């Protein structure tokens, strides 16, 4: 055994591992040209990169196919379960949300409880940022119906807060969208709960 043999092996191993550990966001260099086997390492890496890329392209194609398939299935499911002529969708939205921190919503249609939804902090945040949550879908006959929504959460001064809102609405032919909107009444420093038909 010679001193050189060991130290060269150490350097080869070392420089390779430096590069790997150093890859944070933009990877630094990963081999040493001085080493006899650097070129073969590079060639192996290049081959591996090509293989990765080919697999990645397959994954990309599959992602697209599955997304398209999900779109078709989503539409089919909706049409099957909630045909357009009887469909009513209930959406929840928040405007600002300074005076109310939403915990849950309870929905009754014609006196019958149909939904009781508990919100996570992540979902509430998404609502505050402009997201709209489809909280419930129903099939209703044409004619008059009554909707009662009860909002529970923390009101001004972090007090427990529970408020209801009612809307009598007419279900005609075709899908109907109702929006349960939580807004801030700045003058009164209170939240306001409104149910409206989406136009």
């Amino acid at each position: 055994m010679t001193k050189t043999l060991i130290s060269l092996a150490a350097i080869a191993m070392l420089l390779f591992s430096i590069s790997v550990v150093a890859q944070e966001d933009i990877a630094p260099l990963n081999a040493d040209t001085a080493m006899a086997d650097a070129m073969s390492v590079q060639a192996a890496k290049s081959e591996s990169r090509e293989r990765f890329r080919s697999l990645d392209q397959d994954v990309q194609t599959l992602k697209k196919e599955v997304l398209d398939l999900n779109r078709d299935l989503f539409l089919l499911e909706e049409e099957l379960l909630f045909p357009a002529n009887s469909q009513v969708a209930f959406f929840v939205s928040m405007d600002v949300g300074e005076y109310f921190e939403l915990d849950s919503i309870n929905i009754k249609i014609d006196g019958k409880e149909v939904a009781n939804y508990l919100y996570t902090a992540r979902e509430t945040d998404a609502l505050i940022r402009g997201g709209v949550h489809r909280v419930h879908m129903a099939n209703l006959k044409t004619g008059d119906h009554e909707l009662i929504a009860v909002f529970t959460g923390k009101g001004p001064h972090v007090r427990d807060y529970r408020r209801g809102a009612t809307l009598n609405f007419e279900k005609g032919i075709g899908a109907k969208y109702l929006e349960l909107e939580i807004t801030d009444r700045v003058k009164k420093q209170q939240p306001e709960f409104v149910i409206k038909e989406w136009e």
Partner: protein
Amino acid sequence: MPSGRLLLRCLYLLLALQAATQAVQAAADGRDPIVVKDPHYGEVLFYFYQEDYFPAIVRLLAARENQQLDDHANEAELLLGGMYLSYGHHLEAADIFERLLADNVAPEIRDRTWFFLAKIWYQRGYIDKSREALSYIERELPENLQREALMLEAQILIAAGDYDAAIARLQNWKGRTEWASYAKFNLGVALVRQGRVDEAARLLDDLGNLDPYNDELTSLRDKANLALGYALLQDGQARAAKAPLQRVRLEGPFSNKALLGVGWADAEMDDYQRALVPWMELRSRNLLDSAVQESMLAIPYAMAKLESISQAADHYLNAIEAFYEEMNRLDRTIQHIESGLFFDNFVNDDPLDSAGWYWHLEELPEGLEARYLFHLLATHEFQEGLKNYRDLSYLHRNLDEWQMNVAVYGNMLETRKEAYAIRLPRVQDALARADLDDMVSRKLEFDSTLNNIEESRDWLALASRSEFDMWGEITSLERTPVLTADIPEADEVGDKISLLKGVLQWNLERDFGDRLWRIRRNVHQTGEALVATQRSRRQIDQTMRLEPLRFDELSNRVYSLAPRIEGTKMRVEDALSKQRAFLQSIAVGELQAQKQRLDIYTVQARFALAAIYDIAATVGDASQ
């Protein structure tokens, strides 16, 4: 890592492209609400803000298909591109951006988008596309992105083997930030590769003496010192190599290699006594580290040089045994990885939400494999491969769920068809019995009769049954012959009858208008009810005509989707197995390399041991 936030901020800017100034301000803030005009668009945002990209994309595609995003058409398209990017569906995202960013988009936004695409493509190994995307950047990016872009460009040049160009790029680097330090490091290593050790030494030495203000820079300083030390060692400058190697922290991740290097520097200068000091320190450290493994050979080598032959032999024997055990462990680990269990457990332990691109392995999996593969797990290629494996597993589970649902929908549809077939004859019978046309003509007759009554002011026609009977009684009494008798009582009764008749007539005439209005109102309401009934009848007729067609259409969709799911699922399974094989081959390759190194060490140890025994035998023979 701030890139996720930056991409979101970029996307907010993209979203605001078509909107008014207020929306731009909202976009800049990133937390203010966006005015949602279509509930379906708001629903997409609801999932997008939660970083649930898969359901968000599906909802957007579905809403677009149903033309429910008319008020947000342009924003929706940009959002889709952004979400594709976030989900790691970068090729589709690029298609959208290329289409949308071609014109009418602020250059700043276009440049930023190209930068992010370039970065993602680089990480995914699409070096050519990454380089192309960078070439589309027309103006200077914001400072933080500009630094990163320059680094990215240099990396691309290095990956392409164009070291001189990379050096030229990095030499113009003026910033004094973390990026500057990384740039210096990369430049230093590039120079070493070119054999320009002196130039590299200046840069790495500068970096190796920096005063770090965070862990990242401390780590980079260690790496620079280590790289410099070994570069000098390799260049035959053992004395100079010691200083940078000794600057590496004793307890950091690079300390083992630094200690090994310091020992070799001393050994190069024939100071074996001194070389033993760092090497002996390594003995107590983890044998998984290659530097520790090598020290097990270096120690007896130095001892032999110091003529401590028997101690050297003991150390060689220990090393051979330790290497043997380590190789057995490596064999077991290779077997475990080849069985596929490692990656299955990895996915099973993961919640598999759809975070996509921003997902990052936060914790190493349990077990020996992770310790052996620590370095590998940190590489882009392995990380991206794991992401793909994870994404494919998500797709597989998604398709599994749909497969079950579609089977249920098929049954549901069949049940509905049966129920419809049972109800249809009953409905048809009821419809046949309800003669709507007769009802309509009767209503029209009522209208005509009422018109006649009104025209002739036939107040008696609107009398109630009792009034009509009373009227008949009074008129019959009028005609009673007794009333014609010439007696006072007859006159008196005749007067009373006339009075009664007059009162009744007066009442009927007085109420005529009111009664006529009420009856007309009732007839009108009947007419309205008849119109509604006719409308319902038309709907029922239409439904009876269309429902079988609708059933057929839904059946076709359900039954055509089922094989589509099955086919896609099989392809996903195939891709999963290829991806697993790819990851396995990288992991096993890494472990085989470690094993091969141990093999070489073992051979060296045996050879050295044999040499020691030879010397001992020769000395023994000589002494006899």
